[in-house]
């Protein structure tokens, strides 16, 4: 079984530039999560999808962040424009139904904003 696939693995951009991250969850997993992890911190939930519906986006900074999960499978997370403080690792995770919270994580995208 393939795991959660994220791309790119690394991204370096200048501030005010846009950036997008892509995630392909495990096949059959209905719930998809985007987390942000700063160095020395635990993951911080940005958004959670149940199929194609965003059911929790309370922590997503909506002035510059957006996400979509068309067709309830792959998902993209976008930042426009990026700020220096957005430098972090962006993690995607999926689970079968979001009930027992056994999450499967991708390797993450490490974003550096210069």
């Amino acid at each position, binding site marked *: 079984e393939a795991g*959660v696939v994220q791309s790119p693995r690394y991204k370096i951009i200048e501030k005010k530039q846009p950036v997008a991250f892509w995630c392909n969850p495990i096949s059959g997993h209905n719930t998809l999560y985007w987390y942000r992890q700063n160095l*020395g*911190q*635990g*993951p*911080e*939930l940005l958004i*959670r999808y149940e199929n194609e519906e965003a059911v*929790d986006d309370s922590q997503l900074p909506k002035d510059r962040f957006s996400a979509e999960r068309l067709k309830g499978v792959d998902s993209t997370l976008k930042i426009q424009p990026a700020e220096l403080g957005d430098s972090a690792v962006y*993690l995607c*995770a999926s689970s079968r139904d*979001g009930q*027992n*919270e*056994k*999450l*499967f*994580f*991708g*390797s*993450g995208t490490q974003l550096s904003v210069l």
Partner: protein
Amino acid sequence: AQSVAQPEDQVNVAEGNPLTVKCTYSVSGNPYLFWYVQYPNRGLQFLLKYITGDNLVKGSYGFEAEFNKSQTSFHLKKPSALVSDSALYFCAVRDRGGNNRKLIWGLGTSLAVNP
């Protein structure tokens, strides 16, 4: 408010010795409790979870954790540490009641196992 505390930023143990990584929590109701591990330059991996039943939960790679309701703790343990266990360990909790299904994560504990 829900919270998780991992009181130790770093734990150092010698290979072959038992290890404990501590976690305490605060939730309004009964908790779901989880441990995840993060190896360098890799995503988090599920280790084990407590949902209900036996307070001693066994997980991957020989790890186990004990749910202690009176002390609101869920410490991670392993009888004999390996160098390859060196990683970052995260405890997470969710209140099983209501519609709030958000996992609350600890800040992580860095485990170093010395040969």
